[in-house]
C-alpha cells in the first residue's frame, strides 16, 4: 500500500520535509526514534497484489499508443458510432497489455523475492546490553551491530572497533562499485578502545552529527561527539552497505543510514533512459499518422455529407433515418466511425514488435562467440536492449586510451636514475639491441622475495644497486614506500599486491625485485625489506593522489629518525616543484622522459625532500586541524599539501609500458574505412599519445600534416585552430555554415548542424588539455569543432573526465550525428554517459565504466564486430521492419478508404471483422518478426571485408521521413490495385453455376485474401536471407489464415456462436471458383511485378555497394 500512499501523497503535494542534518545517539532508540528515520528494511518492488492491477494499468495507459486504443474502444462502445465490433481493438489491446503486465509482474515478483531474502538476513545487534540475532529489516538507526568475516555489511555503519590491530577492517566493494581489490577502513581510536567488550559497547553513547542521506560513494562528512570531545568522521571510518567484510574476524559498527537511506540504495534506480534516433523519428511519424488519419476521416466525412444529402435523403424508402438524426449529425458520427475503421494506420503492435526485435538482436550480441574473450571468460554483453539499431549509425567514436586501446597490464620497462638511463640493451658497437623473448633476462634469484613473473633485461641496474649506489637505492625505496598498494601474504614469502591502479602495482613490484620489498602496512607504519634487512618506517602523512594534483606523497620517519617526503607524479607537475639545484639533472631527465614518451611509455617523475623535525611538527598540527574541519576541508588540505611539496630533490623517472591490445590497429583501420571518425581522449602526455597514435594506425606517415595545438591563451588557441583550418581548406569561410532546423515532437526541439567541409588529403589534430579548456569555451567551440571535424584523426591528451564529456557533448550538439564513447575506467564514466552509446571495456580498472555502459566486452577489437556486423544488421533489420510494417498497415487501411466511395461513405469495412482482428496479431506477426530477426544482406565476413557497407546507416538512408513517404506511396498504389482489381473483376459476375458471388461477404473474402497474399509476397521480396524459420513463418501464416478462415466460416462455428461468425460458407462458396483465384493471382502479381522491375532497374542504373556485393557473393 506504500506506493499508493506515496502516490496520493505526491498528488496532494504533501511532501516530507527534507532532512538537512542527521543526528543520532548510539544505543538510544528512544532518542533516535524521535527523528523518524527509516529502518533498515528495503523495498525495491513496485507493486503488491492489490496495487498491481490499477498501478500497472495506469502506467501502461500513460503510453500514447495504449491510451489511443483505449479511446478507440470507448468509441466502439457507442452504438451510433461503432463501425467495428468491440473485439477488433479489444483483442489486440488486451494481448499487448497482458504481455506487458506479465513481464512487469514477473520482474516484480523477482524483486519481492530478493527484497524478502535480503530483509530476512540476520545480524547480531546489541540490544539492552546483549547481542541478539535480528533480521536486517528490524535494525534501527543508532543500533550497534557486530559483523563477522565474509558477512555483507548490513547498513551504512560508522566503524567502532575491530578485531585487527589498529582497528582496521578490510572490505571488498564489488557489489557497490564493481572493484574487487580490498580497501581498508579504520576506526577512531576513541571508539576502537571499546574492542569487543559488550558492556563497554552497551554503555557507549556517542552522538553523531552528519550529512543527510545522499548518493556520493566516496565522500562522507560528520562529527562524532564522545564525552564532550568531537572527532572528525570521513569516508575512511564508514562501512557502506553492499560491501563485504574480508580478512577481519569481527567488527562493531553504529548504524547511521538504514535501508533506502543507504548510499547503495540512493544510487540505484536512477538511470537515464536513452532513446534512439529511430525512436524519435517513430514518435514524429506516429504524430504525422494521427494528422493523416484525421485528414482522411475529414475527407470521408465530407464525402458522407454529400452522399447523405444527395443519396441518403432519398434512399429513405429502404433505410429510414432514425428520428432526430439529420445529415450533419450523421456526417459527424461518420467521422468517428471512420476513426475506428481506419485506426489500423496507427499500429498498436508497432512498439511491442520493435521491443521484441531489439531484444532479439541484443541476444545475438550476448551470444556471439567472436566477441567472447576466453582469457577472462567474458562474453560481450548488451546491457541496454533498446539501442541496437543505433550501433549501425555511429559516426564518431570517442575512445579512451589506457585499458581501451592498450591492455592496461603495466610492465616496468625503463627508468632514469640520477641522470642515467637503464633498461635499454646495447651491443658492443653501441647499437641499440631489439629486446625480444629470447633476450637474456636478469636473474633475481638472489632475492628470495622477488616476483618470478617480473622480467627485466638490463643487468647494469641490478649491479648498480648491489654496489650500493645511494640514488638508486633511494629511487627504489621511494617506489616501495610511496603508494597505496595493500600487501597480502597468506604464506611466508608469498606476497601478493592489491593495487588500485596497475601502474602502482608495476612500480611496487619492480622495487620488490630490485631488493626493496614492501611487506606490510598499518595506518601508522610501513614495513619493507631493504636488501634483505627489515626496516619499519613510521608513516606520518599520506598526501593523496587525485586527478587535479596528479601526484602523491608520503612523509615517513626512518628508524634512524630521519624525516623524508617521497613524492611521485606527472613529470610536469613534479618539475614545477623542484629545488633549483636540480636543474641540470632535470634537463637530462627530461631528455630521457621524452625518449620514453616517444616509445609510448607511461612516465612518472620521482622526487624526495628531507624535512625538518620542528617544521614537521607544526605542519602536522595544522594538518590535523584541516582534516577535522567540517567546512572547506579539501581546499584547506590542498593548500597544506602545496606548501610542503616544494623544493623537491629529483631522483629520476620511471617508464612503464602498456602494450597495445591485439588487433587495435586493424580495428581502427576498419572503422576508418567505414567512415567513422575516431577521437582519442586520453589523460596521457602528448608524446605518449602521439606515439600510441602512430602505433595503432591513427596517425600515419602519409598524412599531409599533423597539427598540434598546445597554446596557453584563448587567442593563441584560436589562432592555431584557424591556421590549421586554413591550411586544410584555404577557401573555407570565416563563419561556419550552420543549418538551424527544428525537429522532434511538435517540432519543439531546435537543432543546429554544422556542415562538414571538404578537405583534400588527410590531416590529424592533437590538442592538449590546457588548450582544450579554452577551446571548449563558448566562443571557440565551433572553431574547435570545424577544425577537428576536418581532420581524419583527433587526439586530445591530458584531458580531465569532465572535458571528455564536454567534447562528446559538443559533437552531439552541433553534428547531429550518432556518437559512441568507449572506455574502461572511472574517468570514462562521464563520457560514456554523455554519448548516444556507451561501451565499457571490462578490463583491469574496476567495473565502473561497464556498470554505466550500454554494451560491454573485454577487448577493443570487438568494437568492429559490434558496429560493422551487429550494428549494421540491427539497423538494416529495424529499417526493413519499419518500412514493411508501415507498408502493410497502410495498404490494409487504404483499401477501406477506396471502398468508402462505393458504400456511401458509411464506414463499412471491406474485410471481415475477424480478419481485422487477426491481421496484425496472427496472420502477419511472425513472418515480419522472422525477417527482422534473421535477415542479412551480406554475411559477417563480407561486412568486415567491405566496411563501406556501414555508411548508409550514418546517412540514415534506410529509414527516414522520405522513406516513410515512399512507403505511403507504395501502399497507396498497392491498395488501389487491391481494391479496384477485385472491384472490376467482380462486377456483374456470378459463380459458374449462376449463383451469387458479387455479394459483400464474398467480396470481403476476396479482398482480404488478395491483401494477405500481396503483403506476404512483398515480405518475400524484402527478405534477402531465407532460413528455414522464415519459410516456416511465411507458409505457416498463410496456412493459418486459410485454416482460420475455413474454421470461422464453417457450419459448426456458426451453429455454436450464431451472431459472431456470420460469414458462414463464404470461403467454401467463393474459393472454389476459378475466377476468384485468377483475380487473386492478377492482383498479387500486379502489386509485386512493378516493384520487382523498379528494383531491378534501380540496381542496374544506380547500384549501391550493397547490390554489387550481393552479386559478388552469389559467385562463390
Amino acid at each position, binding site marked *: 500500500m506504500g506506493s499508493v500512499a506515496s502516490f496520493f501523497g505526491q498528488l496532494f503535494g504533501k511532501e516530507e520535509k527534507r532532512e538537512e542534518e542527521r543526528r543520532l545517539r548510539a544505543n538510544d532508540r528512544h532518542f533516535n526514534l524521535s527523528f523518524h528515520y527509516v529502518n533498515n528494511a528495503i523495498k525495491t518492488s513496485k507493486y503488491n497484489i492489490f496495487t498491481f492491477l490499477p498501478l500497472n494499468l495506469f502506467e501502461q495507459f500513460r503510453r500514447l499508443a495504449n491510451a489511443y486504443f483505449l479511446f478507440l474502444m470507448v468509441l466502439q462502445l457507442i452504438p451510433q458510432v461503432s463501425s467495428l465490433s468491440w473485439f477488433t481493438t479489444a483483442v489486440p489491446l488486451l494481448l499487448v497489455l497482458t504481455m506487458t503486465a506479465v513481464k512487469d509482474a514477473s520482474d516484480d515478483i523477482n524483486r519481492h523475492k530478493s527484497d524478502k531474502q535480503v530483509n530476512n538476513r540476520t545480524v547480531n545487534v546489541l540490544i539492552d546490553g546483549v547481542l541478539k540475532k535480528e533480521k536486517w529489516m528490524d535494525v534501527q538507526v543508532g543500533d550497534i551491530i557486530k559483523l563477522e568475516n565474509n558477512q555483507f555489511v548490513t547498513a551504512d555503519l560508522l566503524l567502532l572497533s575491530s578485531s585487527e590491530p589498529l582497528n582496521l577492517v578490510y572490505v571488498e566493494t564489488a557489489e557497490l562499485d564493481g572493484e574487487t581489490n580490498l580497501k581498508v577502513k579504520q576506526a577512531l581510536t576513541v571508539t576502537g578502545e571499546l574492542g569487543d567488550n559488550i558492556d563497554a559497547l552497551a554503555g557507549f553513547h556517542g552522538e553523531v552529527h552528519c550529512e543527510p542521506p545522499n548518493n556520493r560513494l566516496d565522500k562522507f562528512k560528520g562529527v562524532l561527539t564522545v564525552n564532550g570531545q568531537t572527532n572528525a568522521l570521513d569516508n575512511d571510518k564508514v562501512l557502506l552497505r553492499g560491501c563485504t567484510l574480508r580478512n577481519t574476524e569481527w567488527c562493531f559498527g553504529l548504524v547511521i543510514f538504514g535501508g533506502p537511506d543507504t548510499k547503495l540504495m540512493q544510487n540505484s534506480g536512477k538511470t537515464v533512459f536513452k532513446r534512439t534516433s529511430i525512436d524519435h523519428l517513430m514518435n514524429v511519424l506516429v504524430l504525422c499518422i494521427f494528422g493523416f488519419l484525421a485528414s482522411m476521416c475529414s475527407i470521408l466525412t465530407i464525402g458522407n455529407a454529400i452522399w447523405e444529402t444527395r443519396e441518403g435523403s432519398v434512399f429513405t424508402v429502404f433505410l429510414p433515418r432514425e428520428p432526430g438524426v439529420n445529415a450533419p449529425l450523421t456526417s459527424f458520427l461518420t467521422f468517428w466511425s471512420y476513426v475506428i475503421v481506419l485506426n489500423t494506420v496507427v499500429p498498436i503492435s508497432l512498439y511491442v514488435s520493435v521491443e521484441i526485435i531489439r531484444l532479439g538482436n541484443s541476444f545475438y550480441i550476448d*551470444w556471439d562467440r567472436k566477441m567472447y574473450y576466453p582469457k577472462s571468460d567474458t562474453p560481450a554483453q548488451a546491457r541496454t536492449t533498446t539501442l541496437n539499431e543505433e550501433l549501425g549509425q555511429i559516426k564518431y567514436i570517442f575512445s579512451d586510451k589506457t585499458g581501451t586501446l592498450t591492455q592496461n597490464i603495466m610492465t616496468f620497462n625503463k627508468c632514469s636514475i640520477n641522470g642515467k638511463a637503464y633498461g635499454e640493451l646495447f651491443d658492443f658497437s653501441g647499437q641499440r639491441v631489439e629486446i625480444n623473448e629470447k633476450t637474456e633476462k636478469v636473474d633475481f634469484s638472489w632475492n628470495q622475495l622477488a616476483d618470478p613473473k617480473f622480467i627485466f633485461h638490463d643487468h647494469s641496474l641490478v649491479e648498480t644497486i648491489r654496489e650500493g649506489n645511494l640514488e638508486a637505492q633511494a629511487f627504489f625505496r621511494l617506489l616501495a614506500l610511496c603508494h597505496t598498494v595493500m600487501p597480502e601474504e597468506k604464506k611466508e614469502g608469498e606476497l601478493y599486491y592489491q593495487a588500485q591502479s596497475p601502474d602502482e602495482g608495476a612500480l611496487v613490484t619492480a622495487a620488490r625485485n630490485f631488493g626493496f620489498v614492501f611487506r606490510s602496512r598499518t595506518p601508522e607504519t610501513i614495513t619493507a625489506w631493504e636488501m634483505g634487512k627489515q626496516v619499519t618506517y613510521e608513516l606520518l602523512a599520506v598526501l593523496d593522489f587525485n586527478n587535479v594534483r596528479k601526484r602523491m606523497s608520503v612523509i615517513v620517519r626512518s628508524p634512524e629518525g630521519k624525516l623524508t617526503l617521497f613524492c611521485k607524479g606527472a613529470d610536469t607537475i613534479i618539475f614545477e616543484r623542484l629545488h633549483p639545484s636540480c636543474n641540470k639533472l632535470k634537463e637530462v631527465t627530461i631528455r630521457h622522459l621524452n625518449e620514453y614518451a616517444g616509445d609510448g611509455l607511461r612516465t612518472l617523475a620521482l622526487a624526495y625532500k628531507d624535512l625538518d623535525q620542528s617544521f614537521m611538527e607544526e605542519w602536522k598540527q595544522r594538518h590535523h586541524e584541516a582534516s577535522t574541519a567540517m567546512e572547506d576541508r579539501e581546499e584547506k588540505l590542498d593548500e597544506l599539501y602545496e606548501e610542503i611539496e616544494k623544493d623537491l630533490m629529483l631522483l629520476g623517472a620511471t617508464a612503464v609500458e602498456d602494450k597495445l591490445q591485439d588487433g587495435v590497429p586493424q580495428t581502427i583501420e576498419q572503422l576508418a574505412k567505414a567512415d567513422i571518425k575516431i577521437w582519442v581522449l586520453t589523460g596521457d602526455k602528448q608524446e605518449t599519445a602521439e606515439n600510441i597514435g602512430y602505433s595503432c594506425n591513427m596517425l600515419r606517415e602519409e598524412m599531409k600534416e599533423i597539427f598540434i595545438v598546445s597554446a596557453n591563451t584563448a587567442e593563441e588557441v584560436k589562432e592555431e585552430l584557424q591556421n590549421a583550418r586554413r591550411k586544410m581548406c584555404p577557401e573555407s569561410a570565416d563563419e561556419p555554415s550552420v543549418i538551424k532546423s527544428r525537429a522532434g515532437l511538435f517540432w519543439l526541439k531546435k537543432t543546429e548542424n554544422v556542415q562538414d567541409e571538404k578537405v583534400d588529403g588527410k590531416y590529424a589534430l592533437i590538442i592538449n588539455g590546457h588548450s582544450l579548456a579554452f577551446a571548449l569555451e563558448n566562443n571557440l567551440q565551433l572553431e574547435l569543432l570545424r577544425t577537428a571535424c576536418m581532420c581524419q584523426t583527433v587526439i586530445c591528451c591530458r584531458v580531465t573526465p569532465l572535458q571528455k564529456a564536454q567534447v562528446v557533448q559538443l559533437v552531439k550538439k552541433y553534428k547531429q550525428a550518432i556518437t559512441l564513447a568507449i572506455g574502461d575506467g572511472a574517468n570514462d564514466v562521464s563520457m560514456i554517459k554523455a554519448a548516444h552509446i556507451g561501451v565499457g571495456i571490462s578490463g583491469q580498472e574496476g567495473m565502473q565504466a561497464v556498470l554505466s555502459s550500454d554494451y560491454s566486452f573485454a577487448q577493443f577489437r570487438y568494437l568492429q564486430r559490434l558496429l560493422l556486423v551487429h550494428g549494421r544488421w540491427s539497423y538494416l533489420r529495424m529499417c526493413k521492419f519499419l518500412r514493411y510494417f508501415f507498408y502493410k498497415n497502410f495498404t490494409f487501411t487504404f483499401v477501406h478508404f477506396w471502398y468508402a466511395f462505393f458504400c*456511401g461513405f458509411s464506414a463499412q469495412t471491406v474485410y471481415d471483422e475477424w480478419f481485422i482482428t487477426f491481421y496484425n496479431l496472427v496472420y502477419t506477426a511472425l513472418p515480419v518478426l522472422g525477417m527482422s530477426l534473421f535477415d542479412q544482406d551480406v554475411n559477417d565476413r563480407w561486412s568486415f571485408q567491405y566496411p563501406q557497407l556501414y555508411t548508409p546507416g550514418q546517412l540514415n538512408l534506410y529509414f527516414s521521413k522520405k522513406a516513410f513517404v515512399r512507403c505511403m506511396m507504395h501502399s497507396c498504389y498497392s491498395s488501389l490495385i487491391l481494391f479496384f482489381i477485385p472491384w472490376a473483376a467482380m462486377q456483374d459476375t456470378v459463380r459458374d453455376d449462376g449463383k*451469387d458471388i458479387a455479394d459483400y461477404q464474398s467480396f470481403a473474402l476476396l479482398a482480404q485474401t488478395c491483401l494477405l497474399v500481396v503483403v506476404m509476397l512483398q515480405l518475400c521480396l524484402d527478405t534477402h536471407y531465407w*532460413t528455414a524459420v522464415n519459410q516456416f513463418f511465411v507458409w505457416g501464416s498463410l496456412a493459418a489464415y486459410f485454416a482460420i478462415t475455413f474454421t470461422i466460416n464453417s457450419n459448426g462455428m456458426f451453429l455454436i456462436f450464431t451472431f459472431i461468425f456470420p460469414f458462414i460458407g463464404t470461403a467454401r*462458396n467463393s474459393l472454389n471458383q476459378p*475466377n476468384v483465384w485468377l483475380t487473386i493471382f492478377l492482383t498479387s502479381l500486379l502489386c509485386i511485378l512493378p516493384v520487382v522491375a523498379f528494383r531491378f532497374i534501380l*540496381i542496374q542504373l544506380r547500384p549501391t555497394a550493397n547490390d554489387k556485393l550481393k552479386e559478388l557473393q552469389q559467385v562463390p
Partner: protein
Amino acid sequence: MVKEVKELVNRPDNTAYTQQRLPAWQPMLSAGIVIPGFVSIGLVFIGIGVALFVTSQSIQVLEIDYTGVEQSSPCFKCSDQTGKKCDCVMNFDIDSLFKGPVFFYYGLSNYFQNQRKYSVSIDYNQLTGDLDYFTNPDDACFPFQNDRNKPIVPCGAIANSMFNDTFQLFQLVNGQKKEVPLDGKGIAWWTDYNTKYRNPSVTPLRNAFNGTVKPPSWPQAAYELDTEDTSNNGFINQDFLVWMRTAALPDFRKLYRRITEGDYASGLPAGNYSLEIVYNYPVLSFDGRKKVVFSNVSWMGGKNEFLGIAYLVIGSLCVLMSIVMLIVYAKFKFPEED
C-alpha cells in the same frame, strides 16, 4: 573436458542459431532471373488472357431495363410510384439461339445494399428460427424492429426491402404466348439454405409467427411467400435467401430464376419474347434502375470482360517491360570487377 567447461562457463553456445549462421537461401534480383521471369509471366498472362477473353466473348447476355424512365418504355405508366399493383409487358427479340442453361437475373443500380446501417440491420438469431428472437428482435433491426409494439419477423431493413417484382416469360410463337418455364429452386447458396437460415420447427409454419407482424413493405407474411410450394416459405424461401445475401457494390444483379426445363433446357431459341412484369418495387425515388438480365455462364462464371483484357494488357506490359529491362541491363550493367 569437464574442467574446460568449468573454466569457460560464460562461453556462448556454438550453434548456427546463436552465431547467426543458419543456412539460408539468398535469392537475388539478377538479370538471369528477372528478365526471363517477366517474359514467361507475360506469356502465361497472355495465354490466360486469351482464354478468358474468348470464354467471356462466348457468353451471351441480354439486358432489359424496365424502370420506365422514358416515356416510350412500356413500364412508364407504372413508374409513378402510387404504390398500386401495376403490370407492364416488355417485348424483345432473340436473333439466334441463346444457349442454355439460361439464367434469369434482376438487377438494381444505385442501390446501396452495402451501406453500413443497412447491412447491419439484420437479426441472425431470428433467422435461424430461434423463437425467443421472434418476440424480441435484436436492436440492430431498428427501425424495422417493432411495428406498433408487435415484433416484426423477419426484422431489419434488409428483409423489409426485399425485392418483390415478379416476372413471367413467354415466347410468341405464331401469335400464341407460350410460357417459358422458370425454375426457382436452388438459386441460393447451399449453406444459406441448409445452415444459415432455418425456419422454426413449428408446424404449420404460420403458428410460429403468432404475435408478430410482417415487415411493413411486404405484401404478404414470410410464411406465405410461395403460394405454390409450401416448403419454399419462411426464411428458407429461395428469393428471400438470394436477397438477404447483400451485394458488395451499389450496382448488382441477383439470380431470379433458371431456365432449364422443357423445350428451353438447351436455351432460348431465336424468336420473339414477351416479359410480363408485376411492377411493385419503387426505385425511382432514389434514382435507382431496375433491369432483367438473361445470361448463360462458363467455367469462369458470368460475363466479365475485364479479367481477360486485364490479363492480356498486363501480359503484354510484362513482355514490354522485359525488353526495357534487357536494354537497361545491356547498357548499364555495372562492371563486375568493382
